[in-house]
């Protein structure tokens, strides 16, 4: 047995958690969620977490792994989470960018002093309906380097969508291309492809299923841009068109 095999086998007898553990931890994690919503979502989550456990195990089996189930039973491919789960469960309020901890700002000019990049709001997209400054996920404190600006739009042609901007940091076009290459139906919802945008830019086009989102993400002059809207009303063509407007404005 070589090192990789030895490492794969090491503690492979550890079982997946049971449904009671999943229920307990779900309840702990979501404390504070409104009770009616929590009950409804918990029911959905627990149905899929059990199936998800089966899917995780089935993938081990399909690839020749030897992870036993705690009850010693056999496994079948129960479902493909990427196709079965409903990514629209957590509905987004497109008129309210950012989260509860984000800070509303009145204009791009006001935001400019709190971010480490030159924010862009193309006049051709019309007037924003809201702007929010937010720390990048994973950081508790808002710093200029981490700050992210989300600009919400809602126009007649495109419906609601957001333009998200932040310093690109470690994210590069290659990073995005890596996502496009590695996102398959088991890991990501929808179709992820690299597309040519104006000005020689390459962007990641994400076409999510109904109930999720359509997005175009790219890095330009050290700034991460993300144009994202609801898949039901914001098409790939619309997202690309908005992205090209931003690219032109960002120059």
């Amino acid at each position, binding site marked *: 047995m070589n090192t990789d095999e*030895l490492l794969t086998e090491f503690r492979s007898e550890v079982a997946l958690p049971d449904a009671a553990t*999943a229920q307990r931890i779900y309840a702990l994690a979501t404390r504070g969620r409104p009770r009616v919503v929590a009950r409804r979502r918990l029911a959905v989550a627990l149905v899929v977490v059990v199936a998800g456990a089966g899917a995780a195990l089935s993938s081990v089996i399909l690839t020749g792994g030897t992870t036993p189930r705690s009850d010693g039973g056999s496994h079948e491919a129960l479902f493909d*989470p990427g196709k079965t789960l*409903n990514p629209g*469960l957590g509905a987004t309020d497109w008129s309210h960018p950012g989260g509860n901890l984000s800070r509303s700002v009145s204009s791009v000019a006001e935001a400019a002093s709190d971010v480490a990049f030159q924010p862009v709001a193309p006049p051709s997209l019309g007037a924003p309906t809201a702007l929010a400054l937010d720390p990048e996920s994973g950081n508790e404190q808002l710093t200029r380097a981490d700050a992210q600006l989300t600009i919400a739009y809602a126009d007649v042609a495109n419906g609601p969508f957001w333009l998200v901007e932040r310093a690109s940091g470690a994210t590069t076009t290659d990073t995005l291309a890596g996502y496009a290459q590695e996102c398959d139906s088991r*890991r990501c919802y929808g179709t992820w492809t690299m597309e040519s945008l104006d000005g020689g830019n390459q962007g990641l086009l*994400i076409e999510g299923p109904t109930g999720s989102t359509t997005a175009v993400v790219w890095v330009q002059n050290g700034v991460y841009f993300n144009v994202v809207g*609801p898949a039901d009303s914001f098409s790939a063509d619309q997202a690309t068109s908005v992205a090209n407007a931003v690219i032109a404005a960002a120059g």
Partner: protein
Amino acid sequence: VGHSFDAAFAAEFAPLHRYLARRVGTSAADELAAETFTVAFRRWDRLDPERPVRPWLYGIAANALRHHWRKERRMLRAYARTGVDPVFAEEHPEPASRELAAALAELRPDEREILLLHAWAELTDAEIAAALGIPAGTVKSRLSRTREKLRNRLDPVGQEGV
């Protein structure tokens, strides 16, 4: 892509918990998984809709695991020394496993993190990079170095292939 928290919990909880249990045992895995998903739930509104959830969750878990590095090392050393893996509280007397436990205990925490995210969580280089906030090239080189270190430690005469 517009993941809901519930969908992410459903898809990722079980494998993430198992990964953590392999690292530090079931009891600590309960605690760490709860911490991971609590943080994820609080930050959910701030997660970019297009950002893959899986590496983000493992990144949160990796931060939580930092407080357990010493415990993990103690458990690995105890296994290497006694043949009883604290993760199971059962005897696993295979010499190779005990050697591997010793080798894993000798790795730097960041080396162990990358290696086990790759080997046990089955994250790609890009996902590990996203999870830990480091360049993919760094992941690749550190992973390569760590695997070589492990191979040399376990097979000093170089008879085995990796």
